[in-house]
């Protein structure tokens, strides 16, 4: 579904990505692990089209999306959940969720939207309690639930998640990861950037380790979990 080949990105004189290859199939979860500044976020941003690659090809279903702008890519069914919870602060929870419909708004009837809302609220009862509150009054964890739900409602083919566990209570992290798993079962392809390497590799089939702009390691999750270099650098001794 998604195929990245030889992706290079430059910021001025700094080369953020130096030839990255990543493959992702339908309904597959692939984890991307790496230290801060390794280029993980840049990778997600270049897939969506927020960052222009200086070389390489990004293909979605066999068609090149390398040079498409973010709104065109997102119309093709690619959705990015950025790190740091970007909610529309002065809109209510429900209004935020409605933003997830974007161009599809014409195709959704009111009933359908209600149905989608019910699904979201069933998954995150917390959002139901707060559905009329303005988004900026939500706690960090609730905002993360909201952003993820907003992306889900847009029914993406490809979901790019940037550190979904950031700042969440363990119990919510479990919920979020369970949700990610379910989304994949429904056929969404998910590229998951995550610092909680253990957690990420436990739901992903495969993983890539980005170091200093290149792929340092890749393989099945179980192989990565037992790799000495991985344990030393990203998994910790515990």
């Amino acid at each position, binding site marked *: 579904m998604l195929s990245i080949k030889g992706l290079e990105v430059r*910021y*001025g*004189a*700094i080369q953020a990505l130096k030839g990255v290859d990543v493959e992702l199939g339908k309904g597959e979860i692939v984890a991307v692990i*790496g*230290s*801060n*500044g*390794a280029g993980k*976020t840049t990778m997600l941003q270049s897939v969506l089209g927020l960052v222009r690659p200086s070389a390489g090809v990004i293909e979605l279903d066999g068609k090149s999306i390398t040079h498409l702008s973010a709104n065109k890519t997102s119309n093709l069914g690619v959705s990015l959940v950025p*790190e*740091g*919870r970007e909610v529309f602060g002065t809109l209510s929870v429900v209004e935020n969720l409605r933003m997830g419909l974007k161009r599809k708004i014409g195709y959704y009837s009111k009933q359908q939207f209600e149905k989608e809302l019910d699904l979201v609220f069933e998954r995150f009862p*917390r959002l139901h309690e707060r559905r009329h509150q303005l988004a900026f*009054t*939500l*706690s*960090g*964890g*609730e905002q*993360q639930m909201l952003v993820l739900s907003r992306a889900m409602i847009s029914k993406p083919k490809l979901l790019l998640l940037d*550190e979904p566990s*950031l*700042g*969440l*209570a*363990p*119990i*919510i*992290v*479990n919920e979020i990861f369970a949700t990610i798993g379910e989304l994949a079962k429904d056929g969404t392809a998910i590229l998951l950037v995550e*610092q909680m*390497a253990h957690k990420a590799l436990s739901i992903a089939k495969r993983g890539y380790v980005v170091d200093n702009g290149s792929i340092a390691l890749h393989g099945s999750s179980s192989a990565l979990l037992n790799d000495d270099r991985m344990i030393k*650098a*990203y*998994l*910790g001794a*515990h």
Partner: protein
Amino acid sequence: MNQLIEKSFGYRTAAGWIAGLAAVGLLAAGPWMVDTYYLNLLFMIGIFVITCTGMNILIGYCGIVSIGHAGLMAVGAYMSSFLSTTYGLSFWTVALIGMLVSLIIGSLIAIPTIRAGGVYLSMITIAFGVVIHEVLIRWDGFSGGPLGISGIAKPQVAGYTFDLKSMYIFVLAIAVIALLIARNLRRSSWGRAMIATKENEIAAASLGIRKFTVQYAGFAISSVLAGLSGAIYAHTNSFISPDTYNFQTSVQLVLIVILGGSGRVLGPVIGAAIIVFLPEVLDMEKLRMALYGGIMFAVLFFLPKGIAGTVAGWVAPQLSRFAPKSQKASSSTASGEEIMFSAPAQAKDKELLVLEGINKYFGGLHALKDVSFSVAAGTIHSLVGPNGAGKTTLLNVISGLYSSEQGSFKLHGEKLVPRSLSAVAQLGIARTFQHSRLFKELSVLENIMTGMTKRERSGLGASLLRTPKQLRSERQMEARSHALLDLIGYEGDRHMPASQLPYGHQRMVEIARALATSPSLLLLDEPAAGMTATEIEQLENLLRKLVSHGVTVILIEHHMDFVQRVSDTVTVLDFGRVIGTGSPEQMLSDPRVIQAYLGGEEVAASAEH
């Protein structure tokens, strides 16, 4: 060629000075090279550079867009002209009085309106400019009404009367001084505090920076420079009328700053040169305002950073390729860790902070319910609980960002009354934010140095003049900042603007910035979020080191194994209420905590360890 650039990089400062001196020398030779017509234009550019350098400090550093500065120029011009024509005082006396009155009137607008902030302040400055213009038209006795004042005496020194040539040299000198002042300011605590306040008021306040003080300083400098340039203009031209200083002039001043590149020292020079020359070259005197409108439109559309800003954006990355690679400080251990922490040695386990019955409401939402616990000095006290339990709210109340409706705090046994963020920072409480609030325009190093503002700030005068003492204190702050970055294990580029930092590094730099205030109590809101396992281990070591230096830490964190390892005490919050306070083992095995917070799976996982 590349090697040449690389080599000369070390002499960058010297090269800058030589180029600057050459340019000034060339300009100083102007009167003997061009005719009166062009000399007049050069003189006008000088006048605009003086005013707009002040406005550049106001717009570019402080983020305050004043659209009434022609009014302040008018105050300087009319005050000096009136005194000189009526009482025959010398130019030097009346120019000084003009600057002073301009400062006073500028302060009268600034003091009540800085609090209003951004757009409102701009509106008020527009009104001010218009009022001054109207007053000058009506107040015949002072301003000569619509006809203005003519026959204003030229400045004299020891029997020598200034002509246009010598006035031009004078203006050139003042303009160079103004530019140097703007440059010095940008490299001082005051300049950093101005940019910090512009970028993020809350974060700046949390470092003990008072918004009013720094923004007023910016307004004062710009008022003085506007008054001075007004007086010089009046005494050179010998004639002024209200229309010299109308609304259009104010707009023109803003345009010069924005076109040149706001916040860039040389911006006003570029802007003024274009704005003065262009209508002459194009012979568009009648369409002047339309031309300005067009330029404004084009600049905002195509060059939002202005000419200087855009050029710097192209050139800097090209040059940085040639920069010497090793920029890391070598000083870390030499300067010693002691100087980094001035937390008074405290008897461990003595209560540092006591909270009693804290309540906080947001409208109908009861966010904190009778929260009481105490934090022992020299310990790490963690706050855990579900998202939305009120942990960050509590941190905001402690740090003074929010005020609480009921309840009391005691710090070092002394009762604290509800206070502002900056006042709390002055007491030695520093904090980080859940969403990083770095000052994006400042470099990593400058961000940390901003944390030292309240302790190390030199006087405004010393900062403008860059005195040896101020320079020494800058060097010390720089060394200390490098040491702090070494301490937290930051290995990225230290001269990079904070806007380009990856998320995890932003968090680290924010911790270093909080430490730069030498706090006795450090409040950390989810510092480990977005960090790798290795970085979390570094953080853990750092926290232990801090505690060994007598710093007390309150930590909000969701990485439970981290909390368990590092905390001395854990307080659990749920729905705004304290469920319990105790040792980490005790609290994290509490069934209520497991149910509300950890979830079943996590218990199974921690059983494996």
